[in-house]
Every structure is written in C-alpha cells, then in structure tokens.
C-alpha cells in the first residue's frame, strides 16, 4: 500500500488520535481521577430553606433571585401569601452571609467540593467575604 505524503498524514493522524483520546491519558495517568467530592453538612441545623433536591440543582438560581430582590428591590425577607416566612425560628432573610453561611460555614468542605470538582467559579466572592473555613 503506497501512501502519498505518508509522513505528513501519519503525523496528522497521531496528533488527531492523541488529542481526541487525551481525556483517557489524563485520567489514566492522574491519581486524582478517583477523588470524589465529599460534602460536610451542618450538624446543628436540620433543614434548608428549600428541599434538598431543589437546592442541589437550583441553589444558584435562588441566590440570584435573592440578590436581585435585595439589591434591586430592597426586599430583604422571603414573603409568601403576605407573611414573612420563618426558618429555624428566625425571619427568613435573603442573605448569603446571614442565612446560607450561618449553617454552611465551611466553604472548603461545602461549596468548593462540587464547584472545584466541576470547575464552577461562582462570582459570589467578588463582593462577599470568603469564609475562611472552620466553624464560627
């Protein structure tokens, strides 16, 4: 079998195969490919502001709505049917620092676990002070 411009085609095919199978090589050669995120949930609080499944998928959406509501409308408490909702005995305030981080105080063991695993870089901490791990 004669291959015209054989060495050029061979180099091209090697680059293509190498690039396309790159994830396989990266996974096989890295020890971290078996590391999975481990979330540490708060022990003292029993329930979150919404169901776990909803928070799992839509927490960013909720935070975004809270941000808009507080910053743009100056509405600070979650109101449903004309009443301010309560959560763990307190009025439910739409605040990342005062509500979310009160229970989930350890960013490293909670937020970062999945965010780092999936390369999500939320811009929460452009404005908010990053909790430096540990419990308050």
């Amino acid at each position, binding site marked *: 079998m004669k291959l015209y411009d054989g060495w050029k085609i061979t180099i091209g095919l090697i680059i293509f195969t190498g690039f396309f199978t790159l994830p*396989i090589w990266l*996974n096989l050669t890295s020890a971290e490919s078996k590391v999975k995120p481990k979330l540490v949930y708060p022990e003292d609080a029993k329930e979150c502001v919404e169901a776990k499944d909803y928070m799992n998928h839509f927490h960013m959406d909720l935070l975004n709505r809270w941000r808009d509501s507080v910053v743009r409308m100056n509405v600070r408490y979650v109101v449903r049917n004309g009443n301010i909702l309560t959560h763990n005995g307190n009025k439910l305030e739409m605040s990342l620092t005062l509500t979310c981080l009160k229970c989930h105080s350890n960013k490293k063991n909670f937020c970062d676990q999945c965010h780092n695993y999936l390369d999500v870089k939320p811009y929460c901490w452009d404005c908010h002070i990053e909790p430096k791990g540990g419990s308050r």
Partner: protein
Amino acid sequence: MGLGISLISFLLVLAVGWIAGIVPFLKVFFMAYVPYVALAVFVIGLIIRILRWGRSPVPFRITTTCGQEKSLPWIRQNKLDNPSSALGTLGRMLLEILFFRSLFRNTRAEFKDDRLVYSVDKWLWFFSLAFHWSFLIIFLRHFRFFTEPIPSFVGFLQNIDGFFQVGLPIIYITDVLILSGLTFLFLRRIFNSKVRIISLPSDYFPLLLILGIATTGVLLRYFFKTDLVAVKEFTVSVLSFQAVSQELINKLSPLFAIHFFFVCTLLIYFPLSKLVHLGGVFLSPTRNLANNNRMKRHINPWNYDVPVHTYEEYEEEFRDKMIAAGIPVEKED
C-alpha cells in the same frame, strides 16, 4: 423526501436514547458499553478514511486558485490565494481550516426582473463559522466532565464564553451561537429551493443530530438539571476504563441518557458520512498544493515505463540514409 427520512431517523435515535434512559438494564448497556464502541468506531473509522484518501495519487497540481500566480517580477503575486511556496500554502490552509476562506467567496444567484443576478452572500459563511467554532469550544469546555484534575484551558474558555455574565448558570455565548448557526443551516436547506433540490438525507440528518445534542445540552444546563457530580463520576469512570456501578447509573437522568446517546450516535455516524470533512479538509488538493507547476516538474505517479526511442538513437540508426537523402542531421561524422 430526504427531510422525511432524516426526521424519522432522528426520532428513532431519540426514541432509543429515551428508552435507554428509562429501562434499567438497557441503561447499563447504553451507558457503560456503547461509548466504547462509539469511541473505537470514531477513531479507527476516521483513520481508515484518511488512509484511503492518502492512497489516491494526486497526478498534478490543481491550479483552481483565486489570485495572481507567481509570474514576472513586476507582477504582484497573491501569495495567500495562489501560493508558490510551502509557507504560503500553509497560510492558505490555515485560512481555509480556521476561517473557511473558500466559503467567504460564496455568492447568491437569483432572478431579478428576468435577469440572472449574482450578489455577495456572507450569511452561510458567518453561521457555519459560528457553528463550527462554537462546537469546538463546547467540546473543549466539556473537558471539565472528562478529566480530574481539569486542564486549565477549561476555566479560561468558560470565563471568555460567559463574559456577559447573563443569568445563572451563566449563559454561554457559544450555546446561543451553535443553536442559531445550526438553525440557519437547517432552515437554509428547507427554504432555499436551490439548496433543497440537492439536499439528501445525509445532509439533514447530521444537522438534526447535532441540533439534538445542543438542545439537550442546553436543557440539561438551564432547565432540567441532572446530578452533575454523578455525571462527572460516570464520564471519568468510562474514560479511565473503570467499572460503572448500577447505583451511579441510576443517578443519571433520562434526559442525560438521551444527550449521551446522541453523542455516541454522532461518533459512530461520523466516519461513515460527510462529517469526515473534519479530516478531509486537510487533504483538499485544490488548497494544500503550492502552485509551482511552472517551476518544478511533477511526474504523474501512475505513469508506467514507456520504452522510448529518442531522436539521438533514431539519428544514430538512420544517419547514413538521412545524409544520402539530404536530410540535415545534428551530428555529422
């Protein structure tokens, strides 16, 4: 007609993906084994197609070029559109592969007041460029699901792609571009009668399939979310040849199964269809050969050895008779 066949094929793939997503034992088969088949068919199939092209000889330089060729020193050569050197050819190939130079020359022909009128038409170039680049960037962005640790270019691409920070999860520019690009390419085949008449099922089907991949991807990202941590555990396991547990597969939503099966179908369909232009574009003989026909001798590779009788030999044989008949000879002795 072609559209009908493509639509039915696409709906069949969709149905298979959906059934695979809800029937437990099929789900294991489609999630844990089909991707290996798809990857193997894609890589090996593409290599076979390229090698088959590589075996065809190119007898001479095809000079369908689009600019002034290298000529007299006071005539300016168009070095990119009609290169005579290897460097110029490389430039032409880069323009072709990265920016679709040939498509930029696309024109539209139509009748206006019973006269055939040609006009500039850049829309096809724009939307296909937008689609192809978006597809590449989206594929590269998906490396965040493919490997652990994640290569650094992923974060860089995500930052640029989500530059406008609209919505949350941030809407990616490429998501908008790929959907609009594919929609344009698809509608063009339906509403442009001159294109529709030459369109075959193999033209519609890949557009529908990639449209399906992009749509399910967008739905998964913004609307019907799946457990992303499970998705990544699953893909990393598949891409490092580890066994995937039943429990993990159960966590993946049916919509993700459809998205995943679409991608596997695309990988298998790729080397069997027109989509191999991914590799074929590198082998376009009108683009990758320098126009140096008048500087170098190119010998047709399928020439066989012809027994020739040169003039020198001829004269040697008949010199006496030629001199006798008064025919001039080159060498008199």
